[in-house]
């Protein structure tokens, strides 16, 4: 193999092997960058469009598939890349069936990490919870508000054995709430006690009214 290729990522100069993709250079530069395909060889369809980076000419290209060349400059955190990344992730989540409390990826979810990075709400604490479904507090009969609460705290309370009180605020996506409420009922909780627990932190939240309505309909 001939010499290395010099690439500038957000102003940081890195050297990578020729034939690699921009994502490799970004990783080498130590810039955090999530991508669903992770490695260039795994899948290079470049279809999720979450790792778009901007070139100096204003074009957005997928980092996971764009080949490096000498003197290439890319920017990973421009307003445009952040906006498109955020909207694209939102679109991806919009058609994602969010039932984190029974999901196998529990505690190790790329989507929730990206969502937290881009300040997107809508994924419950369960996605971050290290307790797997058989150890889940709900299975032990403890009324944990994890399925209804916005993720982002790394599930601190459940991780240390305590239940979630919903201090980060409610998830406002209706389909997620409805599914979570059904789950509570399946496990033998009454919706009345769920609402009472929720009122502790959410009593002033504008979503509470809607939440009660949804609970009636379940």
């Amino acid at each position: 193999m001939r010499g290395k290729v010099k690439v500038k990522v957000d102003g940081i100069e890195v050297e990578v092997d020729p034939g690699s993709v921009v994502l490799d250079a970004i990783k080498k530069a130590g810039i955090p960058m999530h991508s669903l395909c992770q490695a260039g060889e795994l899948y290079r369809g470049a279809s999720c469009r979450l790792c778009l980076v901007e070139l100096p000419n204003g074009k957005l290209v997928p980092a996971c598939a764009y080949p490096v060349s000498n003197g290439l400059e890319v920017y990973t955190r421009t307003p445009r890349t952040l906006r498109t990344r955020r909207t694209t992730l939102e679109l991806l989540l919009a058609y994602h069936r969010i039932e984190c409390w029974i999901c196998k990826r529990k505690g190790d979810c790329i989507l929730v990490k990206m969502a937290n990075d881009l300040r997107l709400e809508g994924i419950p604490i369960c996605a971050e919870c290290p307790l797997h479904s058989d150890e889940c507090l709900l299975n032990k009969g403890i009324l944990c508000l994890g399925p209804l609460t916005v993720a982002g705290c790394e599930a601190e309370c459940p991780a240390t054995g305590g239940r979630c009180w919903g201090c980060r605020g409610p998830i406002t996506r209706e389909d997620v709430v409805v599914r979570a409420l059904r789950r509570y009922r399946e496990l033998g909780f009454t919706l009345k006690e769920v609402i009472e627990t929720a009122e502790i932190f959410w009593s002033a939240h504008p979503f509470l009214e809607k939440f009660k309505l949804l609970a009636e309909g379940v």
Partner: protein
Amino acid sequence: MSWTLMNRCCLKCWHKPPDNPCPNYVQCRIKGPLCHDDPECRELRARRLNELEFGRYGVKVRVAIASCTLAVGAAEVYEAIRDYVKESGLAIDISVVGCHGLDFIDPWIEVVRKGYPPAIYANVSPEEVEDIISRYLSGDVSKAFALRYRTGNAKGEFHVPTLDELVFWRKQVRLVSSNCGLINPESIEEYVVRGGYLGLARALRMRPEEVIEEIKLAKLRGRGGAGFPTWIKWKAVKDQVSDVKYVVANAEEGDPSAFSNRLLVESDPHILVEGMIIAGYAIGASKGYVFVGTEGDLAAERLKKAIEEAKKYGLLGENILGSGFAFDIEIVQDAGRYTSGEETALLEEIEGKRSTPRVRPPYPVTKGLWGKPTVINNVETLAHAAVILRDGWDRYATIGTEKSGGTKMVSVSGSIKRPGVYEVPIGTTIRTIIEDIAGGAPEGLKLKAVEVGGPAGGFLPVSEINIPLDYDTLPKLGVAMGSGVLVAVDEHKCMVDLARQFMAFFVSESCGKCVPCRVGTKTMLSILERISSGKGSEEDLELLKELGETLKDACLCALGNGAPIPVLSSIRYFKEEFSAHIREKRCPAGICPVSREVVRYEG
């Protein structure tokens, strides 16, 4: 089969493809014989030329048979003429030709007789045929729609305008479509008589780089929509070192209301064949593919015939005209769809895969069809290449704008007096095309907007159409040249409803490969449906804009990038209509379901 110009005139002619082809074969057809001087051979040619012009018996009827005329009953007209000629025993030749592109006069016929002006009759019904022909034969042309030229001794001649006197013909510059509606698309002879394959003969005497230089000087840019300079593409492929290279002609017009390519291939398939051979020679390819969608049945049939005939006379195949260059063309016909128009999706489809776009780079010029360097051009671009090589770049470059030479075929439809395909110089203003050439809105209607460049092109309000149609001006206004589609929208249409319809089109046509297009179009559609049913809010408009900008930036291919443009441009120019739906809960045009509900409550 009688003697045609394509055959040898006497035993002295030694042209025998592919072993011993004559390099002057094409020129010899009309100017010949070139290798020997024999008055008899000259006489034979002159007689045949006359026969082609006026038929074997001095009278000829041209019947336009193309998709556009067949849709309004040209087949019945053809049968009526055939029956009439048979019954009356008149000595008349009937010739099938393509279409001019003047769709408002379909179905049309043209009667030609030596010494009389050739007369075009518009909107012919089978019952009128007898009257038209017998009147014409008696020297009365007063019922004609137009004359091709005047010769000055027919009755009523001066009441009928010639084509050049008509504004929609005069303002056109017909380069690639010059043969459309004039020649039999299934006859190579008629094409050659009109100067066909001279461009190929000229190109084969030049070096490939000289051919590319010619295209460069002519300032030809891709007619498929993006307007990429053709010579850069050709040169990039020529510079690639590879044993196999390909030329791919894109004849799939995915855009609804785009029909100029279909008209061109149906009416003059040989110009595409010629352009492809020239492209193949310039880049060093030996194989070409034409992709035709399912709508192009007639086009594919005529193209197939054209390829067969070109092969028969040594203009395609091994050792073309003694140059040692070999080229072959294959037609690929498949279930075309909107994404097939995208060049890499087209390659996938030719390879037999699902038509989804590929990631670029690598670009098709380095890794295209089956991983080999490939030139993909729109059929119109290739036809322009044939014209440039025939006429020379200097004449071609004077037409058009400074950055982009030549002409563009535009398909005009919608609420318009004279729908059709018109060929205009690049840089002609949209107002000229819509109001002068196409005649503006029909009686009693007023135009509100013009959709420019197909579904991914966008809407322009009528106040803004005073701009030139070229590749540099349109993007500044938030629309695109696209496939050269102009659709006139009158006041009785609702922009919200149109935006919704276009979005529904994109939802069904999205290939589903990338997230922003697959989910984004669907989300935008549900928002638009919410607005049109009167349940929208102000935030919805912001949401549409945000989603639209994301789609424009983030999608994998140009089709996804173009999907939000109709919505964004209609919000940009017709915001008051959206506001009426959102705030006042009414549809100004009375089309969206919101207004129907209001009517019901009031009643």
